């Protein structure tokens, strides 16, 4: 396996038990009533617990709320949408359009249904014969022919589903009017107009024309519209008779009069009720396709023949069908696309620019600019500019490992890692580290932090530092004389705004037979199951406490600036983090 680069994950306080405010559950667990709360505080953070998977993030993903002085993670921030735009044409879509036209691009941006790559509009027209008398420079627009969509990755084109366009822009609207195979389809507006003509006494001519169009293959949209119109007519008809039920047509079946009528049907069958039942006009169901009836076509011999002719490659894969938008132009259910000739180009889903808010104090912690082309952020409070970042690299002392460093850690052999803490803020911070002596989990490795408490200098300007003291080596406390030894209680190296120190790790042995022997709690059952996923990963939970002095928040404008020691308040921040060092080899 490839060597694991060491990583650092930070835990957001939003998932800590103390903040979750769970009631002391004495009913569950070991039965200790008041114990769970105290237990949670003392128990080290277990990076292998399934729940902790959702609360650990690398530093780039974390934000920081200045008012709460706390870390915020992508899971706990509240997001609000600033702009919607199409990721292909980068045009902004106003949110009013979103409600009417949906969350997809309605211009000419489409994705290939076969490979989900971008589709380009190309002209089908062949070049005019140069032998003919034509303008030599060919500047006359050749783009007048029919247009098709082509995919430049898999060479799919819309001719494979038989669709051609007349204009090169506004493809979404043109596509709505076309079916696979080139036949046209009526849109909702056109159908409404046809119905209006029909009602105004267009005569039998238009009626037959419409029946011919809808006929056997009634598509989803048309069927729904017909059925809805039919039911509305039925409701209007049935409510015209009956006593005191004139309000039924308006309110439907929820009106008090209709409810009382329905209830009277159930309570007793007196003559009075039978009469009232007769007076109500009976509603009937749809009788033909004009009213919205669609007879299911259960004969699939056509589809089976097609499958036998064209083979497996002509069918649609599950991923392709899941990316398709519902095709309102085809018959439902039994017309659901199973062949690649029934696929349609997919309009692009719109993308958003979002601003993020702290869930507790409701301050905005991240806000991009509204314009699509702008990449700046108006507000961008990231954790990387407030908490020290941690980088890890193995420390190869010449005495320890004469051979080449291996990809995996050797069990039971102590190895040293160098942690570098970089301070991003403009104040000196004091860092306190705490790790459990043994890592949690079935195979516990021993961990020793050689210097658990240290200070990192402020992140001053590089120029200030250079001008202040020309002799930079004075600040670097490197081992001037003698070998550079990793001593307990001492840091390894110090720089302008960073400190590096050593931790020593003895990886656990992954042998299952030794597990029973090394188990400290002898009475309990030992889990000697096979090695589970990621159990050979060496992860160290570490509790970091950062303290620094900051100027007291000066909210009062009129007060004189009090820069004395009393004006500075101590601030501290504490969080769990997980250092992933590598995999232990299974020998």
């Amino acid at each position: 396996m490839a060597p694991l680069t060491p990583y650092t994950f930070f835990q957001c306080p939003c998932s800590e038990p103390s903040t979750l405010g769970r009631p002391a559950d004495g009913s569950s667990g070991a039965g200790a009533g008041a114990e769970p709360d105290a237990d949670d505080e003392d128990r080290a953070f277990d990076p292998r617990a399934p729940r902790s998977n959702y609360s650990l993030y690398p530093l780039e993903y974390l934000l920081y709320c200045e008012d709460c002085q706390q870390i915020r993670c992508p899971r706990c921030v509240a997001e609000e949408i600033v702009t919607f735009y199409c990721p292909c044409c980068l045009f902004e879509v106003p949110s009013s359009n979103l409600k009417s036209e949906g969350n997809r691009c309605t211009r000419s941006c489409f994705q290939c249904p076969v490979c989900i790559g971008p589709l380009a509009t190309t002209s089908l027209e062949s070049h005019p014969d140069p032998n003919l008398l034509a303008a030599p420079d060919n500047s006359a627009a050749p783009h007048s022919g029919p247009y098709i969509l082509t995919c430049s990755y898999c060479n799919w084109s819309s001719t494979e589903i038989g669709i051609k366009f007349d204009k090169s822009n506004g493809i979404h609207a043109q596509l709505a009017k076309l079916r696979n195979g080139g036949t046209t389809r009526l849109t909702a507006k056109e159908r409404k107009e046809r119905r209006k003509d029909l009602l105004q006494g267009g005569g039998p001519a238009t009626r037959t024309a419409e029946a011919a169009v809808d006929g056997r293959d009634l598509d989803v949209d048309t069927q729904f519209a017909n059925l809805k119109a039919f039911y509305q007519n039925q409701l209007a008809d049935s409510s015209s008779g009956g006593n005191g039920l004139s309000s039924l047509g308006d309110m439907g079946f929820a009106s008090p009069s209709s409810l009382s009528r329905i209830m009277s049907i159930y309570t007793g069958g007196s003559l009075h009720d039978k009469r009232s039942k007769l007076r109500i006009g009976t509603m009937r169901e749809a009788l033909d396709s004009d009213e919205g009836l669609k007879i299911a076509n259960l004969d699939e011999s056509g589809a089976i023949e097609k499958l036998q002719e064209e083979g497996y490659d002509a069918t649609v894969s599950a991923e392709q069908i899941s990316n398709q938008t519902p095709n309102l132009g085809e018959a439902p259910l039994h017309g659901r696309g199973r062949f690649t000739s029934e696929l349609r180009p997919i309009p692009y889903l719109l993308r958003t620019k979002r601003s993020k808010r702290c869930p507790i104090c409701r301050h905005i912690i991240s806000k991009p600019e509204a314009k699509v082309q702008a990449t700046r952020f108006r507000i961008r409070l990231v954790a990387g500019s407030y908490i020290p970042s941690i980088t890890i690299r193995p420390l190869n002392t010449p005495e320890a490992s004469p051979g080449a460093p291996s990809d995996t850690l050797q069990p039971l052999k102590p190895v040293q890692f160098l942690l570098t803490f970089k301070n991003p803020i403009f104040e000196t911070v004091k860092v306190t580290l705490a790790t459990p002596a043994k890592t949690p989990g079935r195979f516990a490795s021993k961990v020793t932090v050689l210097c658990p408490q240290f200070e990192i200098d402020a992140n001053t300007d590089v120029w200030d530092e250079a001008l202040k003291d020309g002799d930079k080596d004075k600040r670097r406390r490197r081992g001037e004389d003698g070998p550079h030894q990793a001593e307990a209680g001492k840091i390894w190296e110090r720089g302008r705004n960073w400190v590096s120190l050593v931790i020593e790790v003895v990886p656990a042995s992954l042998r299952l037979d030794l597990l029973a022997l090394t188990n400290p709690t002898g009475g309990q059952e030992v889990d000697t199951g096979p090695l589970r996923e990621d159990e050979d990963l060496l992860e160290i939970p570490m509790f970091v406490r950062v303290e620094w002095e900051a100027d007291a928040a000066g909210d009062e404008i009129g007060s004189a600036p009090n820069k004395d020691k009393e004006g500075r308040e101590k601030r501290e921040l504490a969080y769990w983090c997980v250092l992933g060092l590598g995999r232990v080899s299974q020998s």
Partner: protein
Amino acid sequence: MSPARPTSTIAELRASIADKRTTHPRLHEHSPRVTTMSRRPPRGEYIETDTGNKVARKATLVGTQNIMLGGKTVIQPEVMIRGDLVRSVQSASAASSSGPPANNTAVSIGRYCFLSRASCLRPSGRLYKGAFTYMPLRMGDHVFVGHGSVVQAASVGSHVHIGARVVVGELAIIKDYVRVLDDSIIPPNMVIPSFSIVAGQPARVIGEVPEGGHEAFELRDLYKTVGNNPHPVPT
């Protein structure tokens, strides 16, 4: 790119190499005994220009008049930049036959770019008004092109990290702050909006760059680690 920013063409590069040559080239064929005539500084792997560009000697740059480098760009060995695929100027109007070379840019690269080994920058071409012409390839600042990648895009924005063995198809447009992961193939004509993480064959947007990840795109430190007198890699 503002005109005030100093750019250096490869013509400048040539001039700086010519200055460094002080001995007759034939002398190198003889025995390695140092002659008393002149002492040359050892040939470094990179040529460093005044504007801070570091171009490896083993890089293949074709058509150098049409290549514009912003300052502090690193070009590693075995890189190929095709400056010869340039738009053919159609002199319909009364333009001079040899137009100024600045108008005929094939490839223009911004500041602090890093082109890794065996990568290739190639302008893309298409049919424009009936004739096949090449569109200039424009790259922004802080662009990292990984090992063995081929970039044929129409334009690449700033702060873009392209991984290894990536193929960027013709006329693709990559906006700012984009991370292209290794082994992706970006199909032709694709537009990748800002702050995306892109991977796959064909490439799809699989994630967004978090707000804290903007500083990871800066290539200033990487620039210092390369060259004839490289700084050590920061830990």
